[in-house]
């Protein structure tokens, strides 16, 4: 019997650029040309100022750990315990993800730790962006701070 797989996304016209990017090893998010803010998840207009003048760009892949849970129950395609995390991209938007190359423990997973994106190929169509502790030189990298 094949191993049970995790649920995979089915791209829509509005999200196609994101999944095409992930397959190519790029984290592609959107930015509004009118107000300058980056946003996620994908849509063809800015959620902040409603402008339709938006563009897709390649994000740096740098992020910080915003929050998470460590799930202890079985889920198809996962071996518990595993963390379900929300990361904050350097450009501002947040996204849900998994954390790799790090122990799935409260001690190892410290909020605001710097992370970087890597891509896990699931099949010919879908690669998922996941994050690991940052290894690259991060000159000028600003971790997400406490909300004010």
């Amino acid at each position, binding site marked *: 019997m094949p191993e049970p797989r995790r649920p995979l996304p089915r791209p829509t016209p509005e*999200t196609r650029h994101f999944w095409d990017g992930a397959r190519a090893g790029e984290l592609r998010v959107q930015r509004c040309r009118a107000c300058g803010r980056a946003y996620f998840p994908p849509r063809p207009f800015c959620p902040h100022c409603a402008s339709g003048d938006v563009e897709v760009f390649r994000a740096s892949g740098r992020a910080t750990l915003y*929050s998470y849970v460590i799930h202890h129950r079985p889920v198809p395609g996962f071996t518990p315990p595993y963390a*379900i995390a929300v990361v904050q991209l350097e450009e501002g938007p947040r996204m849900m993800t998994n954390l790799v190359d790090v122990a799935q423990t409260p001690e190892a997973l410290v909020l605001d730790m710097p992370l970087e994106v890597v891509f896990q190929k699931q099949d010919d169509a879908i690669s998922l962006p996941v994050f690991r502790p940052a290894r690259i030189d991060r000159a000028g990298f600003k971790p997400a701070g406490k909300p004010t």
Partner: protein
Amino acid sequence: MIRGKVAIVGAAETSELGEIPDKSQLELHADAARNALADCGLTPKDIDGVATAGESPVGIAHYLGITPRWLDGTQVGGCSFMIHVRHAAAAIAAGYCETVLITHGQSGRSRVGVGGFPGGPATLSGQFEAPYGTAGPPTVFTIPVLRYMKDFGLTHEQLAMVAVVQREWAGRNPRAMYRDPLSVDDVRKSRLIAYPFHLLECCLVTDGGGALVLVSAERARDFPKRPVYVLGTGESSETPMVSQMEDFTTSRAFRVSGKAAFSEAGIAPGDVDHLMIYDAFAHLPIYGLEDLGFVPRGEAGRFIWDGNTRPGGKLPLNTNGGGLSYTHTGMYGMFALQESVRQVRGTAPAQVPGVHISVAHGVGGMFAAAGTVVLADAPG
């Protein structure tokens, strides 16, 4: 302004709660509806407005034999019923209908006659959350709390205390599913579900339902039970994806909904004698206390730890035992409303003395939506 113009005259839950394998979900709606109609001496022929979630109001009206002039199928999760109260009050005040029935029934535990959950791999949450191993509310509703703990210093023990205090209330309620006293240590030693949440910090999964009947304040005095007036209401939504909340330490939907309800009612938090905050998980009363303005930001964990919400405390909270100990069918908001009605009527099993104003605040989805209802023993 609808303030005080509409009242709840009938309120009841299903005859049984907990595990009800011999009733379909539709029949749980009907059982609750018939009990609420009996509570106010009406029959389905007297009802001309129907609101529900989880089933279509069309199906409920047909099953019960109602010819509606007004329908509301607002379905935004467990707070849908708070929002139904709000919409019903506006509809009655506008003359769209005169007598509204709001029903809830859910076979959350036995799964008899239950439809599937909506959503799929092409939805936004199907694309951007489900691939990372989310598996229902315990893995999603819970994600914000570590951020709250880091930013405001909430401790694991304070989180556990929420469950301990609510079990104290449940111990006074014969219909509560779990009634034995708990300690912080008991909660902390229960099985980890999704760190930092243990089993006893997660809600029950039960079968049951409840229903309400609303009429204008003028007519309300002619019914057998003391009317419970709708003094103020609010509703809002934020995001269907928890990962996209603006701030993991506060709910925008809670703030918008709560502010609207308190403003319409013309009250401040200090005027509230009794409070229900939908507790699917132990952190929700903490967010609710702060976002509704009962305590300053970052202080709710300490407020509960210090005993302010327990029996005899200055702000009795979740006095039926809550979703953590009383019952939780899936969309629990109806049960928070039922307990607020009982407290204002003076008929609750764990009755708080002198309840003139009660607030029932609900959440829908995982911080996706909110509804708030201010109830009172006088129209204002």
